[in-house]
């Protein structure tokens, strides 16, 4: 799983049935000191995360398991919203 920051949202009316009702958010991967660490990716969300929040997300087929028994065709899903982060002697309240 990877750390990320929610930076935006995507709307699509025409979509796969499995994505019906799912929020699709843009997540920018971040390092433990919350600096940008790569290209943003579109994630499904099972937590209700909002803009600017620090989350962790998983990728690959496993990311669709967050929605079982529904079959959601996603390859990236936000699975948690961070409260605090402690790394490298630094602490962040998110």
């Amino acid at each position, binding site marked *: 799983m990877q750390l990320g920051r929610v930076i*935006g949202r995507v*709307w*699509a009316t025409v979509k796969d049935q*499995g994505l019906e009702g799912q929020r699709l958010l*843009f997540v920018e991967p971040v390092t433990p000191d919350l600096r940008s660490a790569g290209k943003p990716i*579109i994630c499904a969300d099972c937590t209700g995360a909002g803009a*600017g929040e620090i989350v962790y997300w998983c990728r690959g*087929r496993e990311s*669709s398991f967050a929605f079982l028994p529904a079959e*959601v065709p996603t390859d990236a899903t936000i699975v948690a919203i961070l409260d605090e982060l402690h790394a490298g002697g630094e602490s962040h309240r998110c």
Partner: protein
Amino acid sequence: MILARVVGTVVATRKDPRLEGKKLLVVKPVSPEGKEESGYLVAVDTVGAGAKELVILVSGSSARMAEGCKDKPVDTAIVGIVDNVHVSPPK
């Protein structure tokens, strides 16, 4: 999932029989700001996307969960046509 723009179609007569009847499109990944990125992909279209449309792509084994792709040799599928994108400016 990533954003991409439809830039062409692929026609193939000889192919895996499980791909018969599938619409294959050439897409180019784009950034959240709409800027085209390097490379091209061939994707199975499950939503009826057309030329120049901005779409959502799902890759890897998750692509087989798209409508009509179960047990098919597919690793990139178009699963949505984008209406709108909103990205917050960096802090």
